[in-house]
């Protein structure tokens, strides 16, 4: 054994890097193994971080000490707050990144941890000790020991790329080889495996695009940072250098009748429609072929041309994911307004890959049948950098906690989208690549992008994920929300101060001075503007003021969600033994028995979320469990 670690992480994408950092922050010795150190933190697909629900996950990862938000802040070249028109309760940050800058930022953030070592190598097999994992061996013949191993191999396990019906290339990402040895071993270990597919659009040479006819989408970067961690310590502009790189615009064009006709004519040559691919892809991220076939009535489909970085003119054609043959892709591209003379740098492709149905995992993302082995990211049937990062953090932290023989970290659904994500994966499983939506959460009002630190910093502190300095900052930031609320409740605003704000929001003027908290309840009135009109609380972070505003405006609604959260966590306290004889519980429907026996929920709350287990089953389950506890021998 060349070296022994507490935790070994296999793969250094968005799941792997977060797993390694979380474990390192908890004080574990960590080895991060990847086939190519240069591709640490590579964005394989759309160069954007965030979006609806996903942006909140980035905040959560950041609040728990992760690197995604920090790397994004260092590489953002285009920013939009999605849903801005729908009120701050729904705001969703989304940043386009410079791919190269992001990679470098991620790698340097990893290297800040002395107890984290990066290793180049391709893992050939897991070293086992009975049922438990005890290390890995690489193709190069290097052997590393570990108490826990986190696998985050993304689409690399038996990845197969398709372009058209005849071109199939084994690989995990354009330009990178697939991993087959590990896949075989995992399958031999009795793990159930399945296939998903996803796709990516062509990328084009921006120097050959005629932008004059295209709609421009400017960056909205305006005092936005994903990460709270450097907000206080690093001024936005320091020594004349802004921390965010220069901003670049995106461009909007569309696929019209000509492009639709080309696709229709060539549909049989598409890998997906020509029969080369049978596995299921995500419905929310369809190929352009899917869009044309399923929504023939739509006259046009909008396309976003997104910059790949400052050091290249390459553009990502968002909305044009396809597996048609490359010549057809070029023909389509040239039918698009502004792209008449475009050159295609890289063709789009579809990729099929192995995933392991995540109901084989427990709430810590550990494989139930292989102690010490954790899975995170696309290997669990998810999509998205953010979903991968959230899982990486949970798996990495739990791997370290297990190595240290400490209690596991399980985030409840009421605490975070990460909690929803992990619970959905291990309780419900997936039948298409899983992506987070706000609809998946019961708590989309109280779990928001602005209050991630409030929700999670106490957990991070308790576990020891923060440095001393970070802990001080986090406490201060959490205190700010309380301060902002009490300032709003205890200060009043005069008509001449409030009226410009109120009238701009389409409201009516004040008759006399009023408490700020009362005025802030009005529709469309921002607490931040009332504060600045009165000249108080100007040093508070924008997120803190926003959180305070929402607490004031929607107090009654927040209360309802919190009541529901309390109920859920009470149900979460009702533990279920892992060895319950569900097969013998004749008071339950057969379907429930099967589902419960398969998932083996840890709590009644988790049991309640298993599809097919209905409320009447839960009551009967309680009776059966009680009966079993009183006399396991007799049942």
């Amino acid at each position, binding site marked *: 054994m060349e070296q022994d670690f507490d935790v070994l992480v296999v793969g250094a994408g968005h799941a792997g890097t977060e797993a390694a950092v979380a474990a390192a922050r908890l004080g574990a010795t960590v080895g991060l193994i990847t086939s190519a150190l240069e591709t640490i933190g590579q964005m394989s697909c759309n160069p954007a971080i965030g979006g*609806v*629900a996903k942006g909140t996950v980035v905040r959560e990862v950041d609040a728990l000490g992760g690197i995604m938000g920090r790397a994004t802040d260092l590489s953002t070249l285009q920013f939009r707050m999605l849903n801005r028109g729908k009120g701050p309760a*729904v705001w969703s940050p989304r940043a386009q990144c410079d791919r190269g800058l992001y990679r470098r930022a991620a790698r340097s953030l990893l290297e800040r941890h002395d107890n984290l070592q990066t290793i180049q190598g391709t893992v050939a097999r897991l070293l086992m000790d009975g049922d438990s994992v005890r290390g890995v061996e690489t193709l190069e013949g290097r052997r590393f020991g570990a108490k826990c191993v986190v696998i985050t191999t993304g689409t690399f396990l038996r990845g197969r790329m398709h372009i058209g019906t005849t071109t199939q290339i084994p690989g995990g990402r354009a330009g990178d080889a697939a991993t087959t040895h590990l896949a075989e071993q995992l399958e031999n270990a009795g793990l159930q495996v399945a296939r998903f597919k996803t796709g990516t659009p062509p990328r084009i040479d921006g120097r050959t695009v005629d932008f004059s006819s295209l709609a421009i989408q400017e960056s909205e970067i305006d005092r936005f940072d994903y990460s709270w961690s450097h907000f206080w310590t690093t001024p936005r502009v320091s020594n004349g250098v802004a921390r965010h790189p220069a901003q670049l615009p995106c461009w909007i064009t569309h696929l019209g009748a000509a492009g639709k006709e080309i696709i229709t004519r060539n549909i049989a040559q598409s890998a997906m429609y020509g029969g080369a691919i049978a596995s299921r892809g995500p419905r929310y991220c369809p190929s352009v072929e899917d*869009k044309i076939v399923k929504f023939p009535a739509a006259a046009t489909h909008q396309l*976003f041309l997104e910059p790949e970085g400052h050091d290249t003119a390459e553009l990502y054609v968002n909305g044009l994911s396809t597996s048609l043959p490359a010549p057809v892709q070029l023909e389509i591209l040239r039918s698009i307004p502004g792209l008449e003379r475009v050159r295609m740098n890289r063709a789009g492709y579809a990729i099929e890959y192995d995933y392991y149905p995540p109901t084989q995992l427990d709430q810590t993302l550990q494989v139930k049948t292989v102690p010490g082995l954790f899975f995170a990211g696309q290997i669990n049937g998810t999509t998205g950098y953010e979903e991968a990062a959230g899982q990486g953090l949970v798996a990495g932290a739990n791997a370290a906690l297990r190595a240290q023989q400490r209690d596991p970290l399980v985030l409840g659904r009421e605490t975070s989208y990460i909690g929803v994500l992990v619970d959905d994966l291990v309780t419900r499983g997936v039948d298409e690549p899983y992506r987070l939506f706000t609809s998946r959460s019961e708590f989309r*009002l109280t779990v928001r992008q602005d209050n991630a630190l409030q929700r999670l910093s106490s957990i991070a502190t308790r576990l020891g994920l923060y440095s001393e300095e970070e802990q001080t900052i986090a406490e201060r930031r959490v205190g700010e929300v309380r301060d902002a609320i009490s300032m709003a409740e205890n200060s009043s605003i005069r008509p001449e101060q409030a009226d410009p704000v109120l009238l701009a929001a389409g409201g009516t003027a004040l008759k006399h001075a009023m408490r700020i908290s009362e005025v802030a309840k009005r529709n469309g009135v921002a607490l931040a503007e009332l504060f600045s009109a009165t000249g108080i609380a100007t040093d508070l972070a924008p997120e803190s003021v926003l959180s305070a505003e929402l607490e004031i405006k929607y107090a009654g609604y927040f209360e*309802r969600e919190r009541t529901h959260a309390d109920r859920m966590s009470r149900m979460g306290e009702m533990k279920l033994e892992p060895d319950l004889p569900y097969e013998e519980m004749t008071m339950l429907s*057969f379907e429930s028995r099967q589902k419960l026996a398969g998932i083996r929920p840890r709590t009644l709350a988790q049991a309640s979320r298993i*599809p097919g287990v209905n409320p009447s089953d839960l009551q009967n389950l309680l009776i059966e469990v009680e009966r079993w506890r009183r006399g396991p021998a007799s049942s």
Partner: protein
Amino acid sequence: MTESPRRSLTQGDTIVALATPPGRGAIAVIRLSGQDAPRIAARHLSPWPIEPRVATLCEISDGYGGRMEQALVTWFPAPNSYTGETVIEISTHGGDLTPALVIEQLVASGARPAEPGEFTRRAVLNGKMDLLQAEAVADLIDAPSRAMRDAAVRQLDGGLSRRVLDLRAAMLEIEALLAYDIDFPEEDDGPVPRERVLRAIDSALASLDQLLATVPRGELIRSGAVVVIAGEPNVGKSSLFNALIGRSRAIVTEIPGTTRDAIEAVIDGDRWPLRLVDTAGIRDATDVVERLGVELSQRHIQGAHVVLACGDSSESIAHVRESVSRLGASAAVISARTKSDLSVGAADAGAAGAVLVSATTGAGLRELLARIDGELSKLYGAGDGDTPVVTRSRHRAILAAARAELTGFREGWLAGVLPATVAAVHLRSAVHSLEELIGSVDVEDVLDRVFSSFCVGK
């Protein structure tokens, strides 16, 4: 047909019970349900096997060659049976003894006596019936009237289930619109117009209102219409009561004030059960016990759906009508001129519009029942025979709670003051309270609808 996982529930034990009411009767039906039913039945029935779903005359033996009984036997192989399991129904001669002996033999051969409601529970567990239908079965079994039974049968047909499915679709549509609105801000179709959400809310509200509108009728069908017979002492109220129920139950006497307490009987009306209440005569009673009876009758009148103002003269009818209206009752009042066989004097034919009835000859009784039905129909709707009716107070409470939430949602949405995530709190509460009726609305159902309605995928 492929083996559905639910079918394996038949691996549970086999149960047996008498399916018809115990006691005297021409036939008794014994039901045997479970995987082992054929094996158990074969020990006692000959010939066996018999053709599925065809009633066959069989000899029943005690399993050792001793002949016990002849019976008609019908075999329903799983899953096409009431419970979804293999079911064998054995029709024996009625009475207490014969069926009990047969059941005893079947139990000796491995069947277990069923618990109350266990056949229906198995039907629900095996997906043969939804809960609404199961409740309808319970109602059917103890339906006190033809009307109640009709309503129960309509529910069993899935009439209510179908309406409830419409409601479910309406709720799902709103959820999907909000999900799209929040989760997909940059798509081809653009944002959802506020009016479209409003239309979806209105459609859900209309669905709820349709169901809620049947509540009063449902209660009438379930609990019966209270028909109070009121009048001065000695005008023949109890005789009328008895004539209506067709048998003597109250003490009928010439002495004023004998019926001290109210007496109630349920008769089978056309559309709903009628709960006839015979009351003490309305008059200023001095006797303490009798006064109690009078107060009781006043309370009955206040809670009545229909009051029959009885009298043997136009004055006495007018007097009763006046007393009833003084009590502030909301009931429909029908005048009944009693003892029409005794005094059909032209001068005193009764108050205008009064029904002439005779408890002695039965004259006018049918007309009186028709009038009662007519008044109730005016108040509660005649029902078109296929309008499903909400007969459970729990369902009514659920619908009302959901309605309140949707109304809150609508107001906030209309005023434009509620962001989608906030408005959705109302929606989710509504869906949650309806869950028992419409089944759970899963996020996958919502997403399915989003993806089939909108071309997403920036």
